[in-house]
Every structure is written in structure tokens, then in C-alpha cells.
């Protein structure tokens, strides 16, 4: 049995992002699946502090129709 030993790093800490804006859809798109679900922290490796901000930003973007709640059809 082999374990994946590659360590995950927080994307925001790596790139020096301290504030996540809900209007920055290009950034938020990285953290949702094709269906529009938020990818869990254990997969993305982002820190707890930034993940809380991220979740809030995605939900705000969904409310104002910048991002989908669900994505049943194939087009974005």
C-alpha cells in the first residue's frame, strides 16, 4: 500500500491573498466542482481562516447570480 505523501498548501497563503472578494469569480471558480459544490478543505488544503472567508464569498456570489447554486447543464 502506498500513501500520498505530497503535502497540500493553502493557495491563499502561497499567493499572499489576505482578503477574498465575492466579485472575483475567476478565483472562486477554482474552489467549486463542476456541479457547483464547494470543495472541502481537506481536499484543497486551504487554512481554516481562509476557508471560512472563501465559503462566505462563494455564498455571496451565488446570491447575486455570479456563481451557480447547482450546475445541471454542461455549460458554465
Amino acid at each position: 500500500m502506498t500513501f500520498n505523501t505530497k503535502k497540500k498548501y493553502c493557495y491563499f497563503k502561497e499567493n499572499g491573498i489576505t482578503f477574498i472578494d465575492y466579485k472575483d469569480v475567476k478565483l472562486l471558480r477554482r474552489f467549486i466542482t463542476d456541479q457547483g459544490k464547494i470543495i472541502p478543505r481537506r481536499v484543497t488544503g486551504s487554512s481554516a481562516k481562509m476557508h471560512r472567508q472563501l465559503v462566505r464569498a462563494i455564498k455571496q456570489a451565488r446570491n447575486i447570480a455570479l456563481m451557480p447554486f447547482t450546475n445541471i447543464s454542461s455549460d458554465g
Partner: protein
Amino acid sequence: MRYYELLYIVNPNIEDDKTSVIIDEIGKEIEKYKVSIINHNIWGKKRLAYPIKNNKYGIYILLQFGADQFEFLKEFERYLILSKSVIRHQIVKLDEEPAKVEDVEPIVDEKELAEKESFEIPEVEAKSDVGTEEIQDVSEVEKVEDIVEAEPEEPVVEKESKEESE
């Protein structure tokens, strides 16, 4: 002083001249409450992630302002809900004072542009096809028939070669 950001979507079916009228109306409405407007810009017409009131597109407008009190926000939100041209709005509190942006280029939706182009191309083709030159079409059909007749000979040759190899 606290700083707020209002992003609202205007119904895309209204004319372009009237969007500026709506912006003025909302600007006047919020100025009643002794508020200092920092930015009030049009983002542009964008495709919505999901339809709102059967609208696929919407005109996004961003308003950033600073205010000393916050009690008026409830009243102002009620005004936004009641206004027919605004189909969705969201007020968010900002941590810092936003920078003043002077000239914002409206964001052009890439998908929208692509759709427009794809619509234009078929129209041009349709125009060229209309009318005249039926005689040429007949001759083309004859040529196609000739090719169809010519084609089946090749597979036969292949089959023969296969039999030989076996």
C-alpha cells in the same frame, strides 16, 4: 464612518438610455439619507449564473458608499425590492474604505459576444443561398452521382487483396 457596497442587477430588457435614468433615481434615493457616494459604476451586461424572474441576462451596477448610521439601510432595501427595474440586490459591509475608481470600462461578456457572432454568420449564408441558379444545382447533383458510382470500386479491390493474403 462605515463603508458599504451595493451590487444590484437591473432588468436587461429596458433600453440603454433608461439604465442611466435608473442609476440617477437610485443615487438620488440614497442621497436622502446623508450618505457619501464613493463609486457608482455600470459593470455591464452579463449572463446570469441562473435565471432570475425569467431573465437570462442582467445589467450589473456597483455602488459603494460611506455612512455614519445604518438604520436607513432597511428602508433603502425596501425601496430596492419595490422598484420594478431592480431584479436582485445585495448590500455588503466593507472592512476598509474603497478606492475611488474614475473610468470603468464595462465588462464585455465573452459568451455573449460569441453568441452574437454565431448568430451573424448564418444570416450571411442564408442571403447567398436565396434565389437563382437552380440549373447549376442540377449539374452538381449529377457530379455527386458520378462520384458515388465511382467509389464502390475501391473496396472491391481491397477485398480481393485480402483474399489473396489469406
